[in-house]
């Protein structure tokens, strides 16, 4: 134990970073995309693009539910907002099917203009990436979450040891020295890590908090005597109603109630819930979106008004800011809601997306630095050993390979036949096949040529997405429809930006076959690693 503290920390940082780094790159990139998961899902269902909220939409929704499930226990109407175009209708059937019933009931989508039920193509949409970023895919959910949780802990260790390792954190705060191989990668890694350090810490620590019942169950087990359900229903209560359906009865028109609620809160009503619809004990619950408060509320606390269904009498007005919240809850609320950014309006969401890009760039530059450093340490006549080649190949798969796979997933969404059986699974299969191919390719060609080929392929695929869109949808970049809903046009624009970034990377890789001022012996041409891959490669 003669090594200095800082050296030990550097060792810890290097190896914890490497061991689960590939997984962390994937978690960061898919997690960044998850800020826009609803927008991604919207883009992936072009059948619902041509739908806009109208004054008569609510009546159309009530009529559709009345036709579909007049005797349901409850109806839920989610009106179109900034993130969706169609009306989401849910209902809880009167008789719960034995063990097959979903807790959230049945669901369908309705066109907000015409009131027709729309059946968009089957896809997992942005939820696939969202789920992937904390429970991966195809392996047991518990083990996957434990693995992601382990990676998150390693990330926290890497953040802390990284700060200690960084010798000149303030002196080098604004420093980037290009064209110097390993040095440049270290600068880029430092810049993306240090400047966005509060975000990195927040996202990692809150990630652990979200996993807290998974990794630290003993406190709950002790206090609730192994009845974990009791803990969840007490702490994360969903307020389920147990009222029996009354006798058939008329309901008042919802329109005036909506006006009343909108005047009360000064915001548009977003969700309408009816319990025991068409009964004399029906209740109509109207919700508007909550203010972007991050700590001052408990879950599910939207400003709400509840009306008696048959008389239209106001029963209850709930303003969540008045709920007392304990300091522990405030901290938990702050971290978890900032992690998920569900409160965010579109502009704030873009900022979070950029934070996520910085996080992805940090992990990516860290992985590339690992290889760059060891490549430059090679003597003139020395070939990289098998381990270094393998790390380089795995880097390729986890960075350019993932970008290829994501692009392929979006292309599959447009190109697979709409009526294909198990279509949503086929899209995911395309994703994993492309990722696997890139892994095999990366391991076979763990050198500059491999990088050039994968970057070229990724740029082409990202460019292909908006292009294919022109031939397969009526909401591509040259239609006014895409610009009506900013999310749709933005998706194509981000694809173009990623393709341009890829093209720039390719140009840099081609232009400079060897790092110009790499110190020490230069690596043999074939074995040279991509030291020019810029950091901004993430969706």
């Amino acid at each position, binding site marked *: 134990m003669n090594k200095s503290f800082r050296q030990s920390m550097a060792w810890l940082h290097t190896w914890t970073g490497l061991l689960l780094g590939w997984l962390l790159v994937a978690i960061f990139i898919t997690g960044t995309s998850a800020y826009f998961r609803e927008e991604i899902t919207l883009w992936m269902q072009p059948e619902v693009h041509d739908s806009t909220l109208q004054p008569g939409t609510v009546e159309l929704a009530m009529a559709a539910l009345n036709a579909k499930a007049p005797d349901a226990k409850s109806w839920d109407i989610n009106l179109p907002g900034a993130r969706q175009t169609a009306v989401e209708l849910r209902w809880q059937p009167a008789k719960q099917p034995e063990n097959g019933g979903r807790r959230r009931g049945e669901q369908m989508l309705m066109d907000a203009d015409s009131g027709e039920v729309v059946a968009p193509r089957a896809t997992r949409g942005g939820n696939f990436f969202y789920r992937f970023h904390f429970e991966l895919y195809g392996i047991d959910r518990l083990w996957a979450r434990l693995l992601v949780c382990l990676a998150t802990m390693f990330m926290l260790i890497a953040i802390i040891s990284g700060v200690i390792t960084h010798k000149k954190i303030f002196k080098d705060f*604004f420093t*980037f020295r*290009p064209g110097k191989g390993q040095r440049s990668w270290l600068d880029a890694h430092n810049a993306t890590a240090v400047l966005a350090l*509060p975000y990195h810490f927040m996202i990692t620590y809150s990630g652990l908090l979200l996993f807290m019942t998974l990794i630290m169950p003993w406190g709950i087990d002790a206090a609730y005597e192994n009845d974990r359900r009791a803990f969840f229903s007490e702490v994360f209560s969903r307020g389920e109603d147990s009222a029996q359906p009354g006798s058939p009865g008329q309901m008042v028109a919802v329109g005036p109630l909506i006006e009343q609620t909108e005047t009360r809160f000064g915001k548009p009503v977003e969700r309408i819930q009816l319990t025991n619809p068409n009964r004399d004990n029906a209740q109509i619950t109207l919700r508007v979106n909550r203010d972007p*408060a991050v700590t*001052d509320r408990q879950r599910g606390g939207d400003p709400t008004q509840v009306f008696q269904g048959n008389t239209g009498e106001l029963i209850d007005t709930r303003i969540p800011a008045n709920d007392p919240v304990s300091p522990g809850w405030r901290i938990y609320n*702050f971290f978890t809601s900032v992690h998920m950014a569900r409160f965010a309006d579109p502009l704030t969401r873009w*900022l979070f997306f950029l*934070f996520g890009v*910085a996080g992805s760039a940090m992990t990516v530059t860290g992985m590339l630095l690992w290889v760059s450093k060891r490549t430059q340490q090679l003597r003139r006549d020395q070939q990289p050993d098998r381990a270094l080649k393998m790390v380089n190949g795995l880097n390729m798969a986890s960075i350019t390979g993932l970008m290829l796979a994501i692009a392929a997933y979006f292309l599959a969404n447009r190109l697979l036949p709409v009526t294909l059986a198990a279509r949503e699974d086929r899209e995911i299969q395309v994703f994993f096949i492309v990722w696997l191919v890139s892994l095999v390719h990366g391991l076979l060609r763990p050198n500059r040529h491999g990088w050039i080929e994968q970057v070229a392929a990724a740029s082409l695929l990202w460019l292909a997405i908006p292009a294919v869109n022109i031939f397969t949808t009526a909401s591509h970049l040259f239609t006014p429809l895409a610009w009506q809903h900013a999310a749709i046009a933005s998706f194509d624009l981000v694809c173009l930006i990623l393709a341009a970034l890829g093209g720039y990377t390719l140009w840099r890789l081609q232009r400079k076959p060897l790092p110009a001022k790499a110190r020490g012996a230069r690596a043999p041409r074939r074995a040279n690693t991509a030291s020019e891959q810029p950091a901004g490669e993430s969706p």
Partner: protein
Amino acid sequence: MTMAPPLFLALALAYAGLTSLSLAMKRHHDQVMGRKLQPERVRYYRWPGWLLLALSLWVTLTVWPLGLALFMAVGLVAIAGLPLVFLLPYRARLAGRLAVALPVLAMLTWSTVALA
């Protein structure tokens, strides 16, 4: 999009503040100004730098509630700082000019939107 103008201003102020702080450092002062930094002039860059960052925080407080505003303010520092870091070695003079131009542009935008 009523929050776009103040957000732009907060970003611009964060960028200007960071540039000012970097001008208080020898290496970057050389890069941007093309001359050596006199040690007694450090305070002419450091204090305004912190002041601009404080102003940026103050603008975010008008957009978001306290806790979130604090978090977003440090986040904006990252979003403003990364372009600065990568501009300095390539286009140092442009980096300096942007620090003046962006806040002015942001304030003009805000006043135009407010008057309209």
